[in-house]
């Protein structure tokens, strides 16, 4: 197969293995001399471990804990605050204390019940609101940043303003619900521990293992297994599991398998940070924005993990796609004694976009201007500064994308139709809502240049087969296919002659983690360059290798201290329209039409892009009204998929989408990031549509039926 237009879809490389059910995931793997591991977890949210009593362990059963860790007892992520096995203090319910290993899971489960951990309980912080109240106490603020217009200027503007509007906005947990729960296997060999599993970031895991095992570079090896979904949930969390199995394998000299079932996975793995966003906006007489200050609080959970970086992205996106005069922002990650929160598709941006879209929607009502019209007045244009004093360099097509959707959806006509419908129907109310959003592609700031320093390699065999040697994971998003397409096209080779085996750190260089919508744009570009180089030196009948390193595009340098400069090299853009119907008796929301227009530079594979749009948007819509996770006294309440409630095929309607071409010079064939963007607009559009249907406002997501019924009840009370 040779490719004319890169966007034309091809069969995915992993298609037949997945469709036939033949592809083995980590829990399908069995190796010789393998035992299972189960984790003894804290039942207390915050406390000091006094003693641990183990039952008599039958032969072949052993306990592994902190004393078995050759290196320091923390999972290497950013800060050293996350123990591999908690041995002094426990900071959340579910925190791993020990691992029991042995052949039979049945026996392990009964032994688990007999382990007695005595913990001296201390007063825990269970909620973000409690943490905000105790913000000044030691250790509660885990990260904070502040930037933008000086507060003196803002308060001078506020003095002269017609009115000041303050709004508080809350966002909830979101659970990844990857199809395949987390799983990790350490294969024991005398001179090497090989860790296999479901993962997004091979070298994060390798670095965590080098630290935990205090060993040489060639004594650990990380191999990705076929990965059934990640969504960020397999970014940093697998590093901890990898440490567990590797430490255990080293201690018992056997291969150790650790796989979670769904309920364990839902209760102990990272989630999207619940957030509180406070807006304070000065308006003139006709409702124009004079200044806007935002304050963001993220619930970090018990360890900081990646939360500081999540906060950075939340802050950088806190003004949405708007050029707001006199903008000021600050934000905090606060510690609570709950399960640590972490990476999740969008990485802080979904909270910020839900908040700012909601706030601007509400301001438009005050100004008595149609919401979309009001937002368009503030839309950024090419050449405008970003809120961090960077620049939007490339052409921005959002206006065209809006115009297109206004036509396609017959927006004005629909609004009138809905108004008539709502007057006649007492039970059901229809509404239409919109959202405008962007996503900064790649790592925040100078991460690519300073931390990641990606390297890619292409290896060509004598018979002309080319293999990709990179450390990125296909987790369902399709990079086995898209990256091969890029290389095949550049080399003029049939797509079938380019291979991308599951990566193994023994043979692949560090091309960076599979996160931040960076893979296609950054790694794809490096591969495109490597392929060009290989083509130039191509010799038939011989083995050849080429290597490429990341080159930074000079922009306005990012300074994390002052929070200024170009936060991202490029931005992808999106517009969503949502039409829905609310049942005022039950508060249930039924989606009727969902539209998405996107601009991601250039699409590398149409069908894969459609997969990202449909999946991302479904996940984003659900974040706004359907998926609900709560924590009570430090315990996650929803332990099954049905109780948590991600959308089924009966909840989502066919999504009408279009992608606009706008090639980006530093992306392969012009491609930018696409994976996270598609989630971001869902929740704010759903909120706006529900508000439109009910003529009311909400200050939170998810807007569940419970929230709607309460709001209708309050409204009824007001109207007497």
């Amino acid at each position, binding site marked *: 197969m040779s490719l004319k237009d890169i966007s034309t879809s091809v069969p995915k490389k992993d298609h037949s293995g997945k469709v036939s059910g033949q592809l083995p995931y980590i829990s399908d793997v069995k190796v010789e001399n393998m035992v*299972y591991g189960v984790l003894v977890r804290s039942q207390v949210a915050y406390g000091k471990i006094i003693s641990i009593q183990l039952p008599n362990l*039958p032969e072949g059963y052993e306990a592994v804990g902190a004393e078995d860790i050759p290196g320091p007892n923390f999972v290497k992520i950013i800060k050293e605050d996350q123990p591999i096995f908690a041995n002094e203090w426990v900071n959340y319910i579910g925190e791993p204390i020990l691992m029991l290993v042995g052949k*039979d*899971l*049945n*026996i392990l*489960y009964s032994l688990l019940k007999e382990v007695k951990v005595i913990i001296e309980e201390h007063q825990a912080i269970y909620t973000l609101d409690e943490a905000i109240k105790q913000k000044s106490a030691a250790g509660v603020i885990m990260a904070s940043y502040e930037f933008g217009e000086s507060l003196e200027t803002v308060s001078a503007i506020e003095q002269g303003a017609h009115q000041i509007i303050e709004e508080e906005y809350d966002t909830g947990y979101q659970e990844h619900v990857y199809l395949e729960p987390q799983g990790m296997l350490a294969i024991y060999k005398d001179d090497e521990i090989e860790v296999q599993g479901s993962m997004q970031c091979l070298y994060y895991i390798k670095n965590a293992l080098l630290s935990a095992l205090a060993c040489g570079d060639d004594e650990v090896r990380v191999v990705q297994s076929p990965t059934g979904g990640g969504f960020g949930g397999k970014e940093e969390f697998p590093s901890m599991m990898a440490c567990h199995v590797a430490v255990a394998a080293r201690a018992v000299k056997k291969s150790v398998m650790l*796989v*979670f*079932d769904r309920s*364990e996975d839902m209760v102990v793995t990272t989630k999207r940070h619940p957030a509180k966003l406070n807006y304070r906006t000065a308006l003139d007489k006709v409702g124009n924005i004079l200044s806007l200050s935002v304050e963001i609080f993220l619930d970090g959970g018990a360890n900081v993990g990646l939360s500081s970086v999540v906060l950075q992205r939340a802050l950088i996106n806190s003004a949405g796609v708007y050029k707001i005069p006199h903008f000021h922002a600050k934000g905090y990650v606060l510690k609570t004694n709950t399960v640590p929160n972490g990476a999740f598709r969008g990485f802080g941006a979904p909270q910020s976009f839900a908040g700012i879209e909601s706030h601007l929607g509400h301001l438009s009502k005050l100004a008595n201007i149609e919401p979309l019209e009001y937002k368009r007045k503030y839309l950024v244009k090419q050449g405008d500064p970003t809120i961090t004093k960077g620049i939007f360099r490339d052409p921005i097509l959002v206006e065209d994308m809006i115009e297109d959707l206004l036509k396609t959806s017959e927006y004005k006509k629909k609004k009138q139709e809905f108004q008539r419908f709502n007057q006649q129907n007492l*039970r059901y109310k229809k509404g239409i809502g919109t959202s405008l959003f962007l996503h900064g592609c790649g790592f925040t700031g100078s991460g690519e240049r300073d931390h990641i320093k990606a390297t890619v390699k292409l290896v060509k065999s004598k018979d002309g087969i080319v293999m990709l040697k990179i450390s990125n994971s296909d987790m369902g998003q399709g990079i086995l296919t898209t990256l091969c397409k890029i290389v095949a096209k550049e080399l003029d080779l049939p797509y079938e002659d380019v291979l991308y085996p599951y990566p193994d750190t023994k043979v692949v260089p560090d091309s960076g983690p599979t996160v931040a919508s960076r893979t296609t744009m950054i790694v794809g570009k490096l591969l495109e360059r490597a392929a060009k180089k290989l083509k130039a030196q191509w010799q038939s009948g011989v083995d050849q290798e080429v290597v490429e390193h990341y080159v930074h595009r000079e922009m306005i340098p990012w300074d994390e201290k002052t929070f200024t400069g170009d936060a991202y090299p490029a931005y992808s853009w999106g517009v969503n329209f949502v039409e829905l119907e609310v049942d005022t*008796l*039950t*508060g*249930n929301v039924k989606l009727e039409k969902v539209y998405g227009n996107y601009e991601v530079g250039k699409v590398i594979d149409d069908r894969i892009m459609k997969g990202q749009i449909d999946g991302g948007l479904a996940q984003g819509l659900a974040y706004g009204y*359907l998926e*609900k996770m*709560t924590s009570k006294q430090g315990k996650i*309440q*929803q*332990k099954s*998929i*049905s*109780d948590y*409630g*991600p*959308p*089924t*095929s*009966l*909840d989502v309607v066919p999504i009408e989408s279009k992608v606009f071409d706008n090639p980006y010079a530093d992306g392969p064939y012009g491609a930018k990031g696409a994976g996270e963007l598609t989630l971001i607009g869902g929740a704010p559009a759903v909120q706006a549509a529900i508000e439109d249907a009910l003529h009311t406002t909400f200050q939170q997501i998810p807007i*569940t*039926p*419970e929230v709607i*019924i*309460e709001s209708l*009840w309050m409204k009824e009370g007001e109207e007497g």
Partner: protein
Amino acid sequence: MVEKMTATYRFDRLEQTLSQLNREDCLIMAGGTDIMVLHKSGRGVPLKLPKPLIFIDHLSELKQVFQNHKDIHIGACCTYSELLEHPLIPVSLKNAIKTIAAPAIRNRGTLGGNICNASPAGDTLPLLYVYNAKLLLRSVTGDRIVEISDFIQGPRRVQRYQNEILAEIILPSVLEEGAYVVFEKVGNRNADAIAKVGFAGYIRINEARIEDVRFAFGAVGPTMVRSIDIERKLVGKTIPLADADIVQVVAGFDKIIRPIDDQRSTATYRKTVALNLLRYFLSMKQYQAN
């Protein structure tokens, strides 16, 4: 540590099954969609069953649907999918069945299982209550018939003797003309959801006068909530009902519906929605028989 294998039985005939049940207390497995979940014992470990298991899902004696005068008899082991296809099954019951889980579960799950599982949120139960369903229980000593509301006594508690099998669900006089039946399931999503509130309403009108009216609520108490007293007060009234009558009925149920907070919803929500659905049903201007 070798665990004793759980005994399992799968007889060809109902008769043999009943004999075995008469000899030994067994866990009865129809579709297994509840039992498999209830006795889950961790990843990678087989089910732990407290009793021997006896399969009845294949017994043809328990899979018949037939008409007897104006009654419909439904074999307890008919799967939901089979009932959806059957011409004798009332549309309202089919509509209720369509809200249950998803096709794979509906291919296994049975109406008898939904009753014997006696979940407070059992999807078909509100409807079976307003149909005044009767249950035919069979054992080696013979048959007996009980009202569904007597059979179900509490969460996962039914009045079944060890040697009995629920053989048939009887919907009495369901083929009588003129009843309007409504079923509403409120879940957190449109498939694979456990009900937060269930409501069934039944009304039969003769020249604008109410001849018979029944209501049942699910997932708002340990068992379905129904009140014959409240229902009786409406008999003889004319449609559309006066506001005062509606207020009185709603107030009556307001007193007896006492839901709980849990991981799926709140007590306030459940009660508000239950009463909303009731009020809506009572406020209809006309009721077209279905």
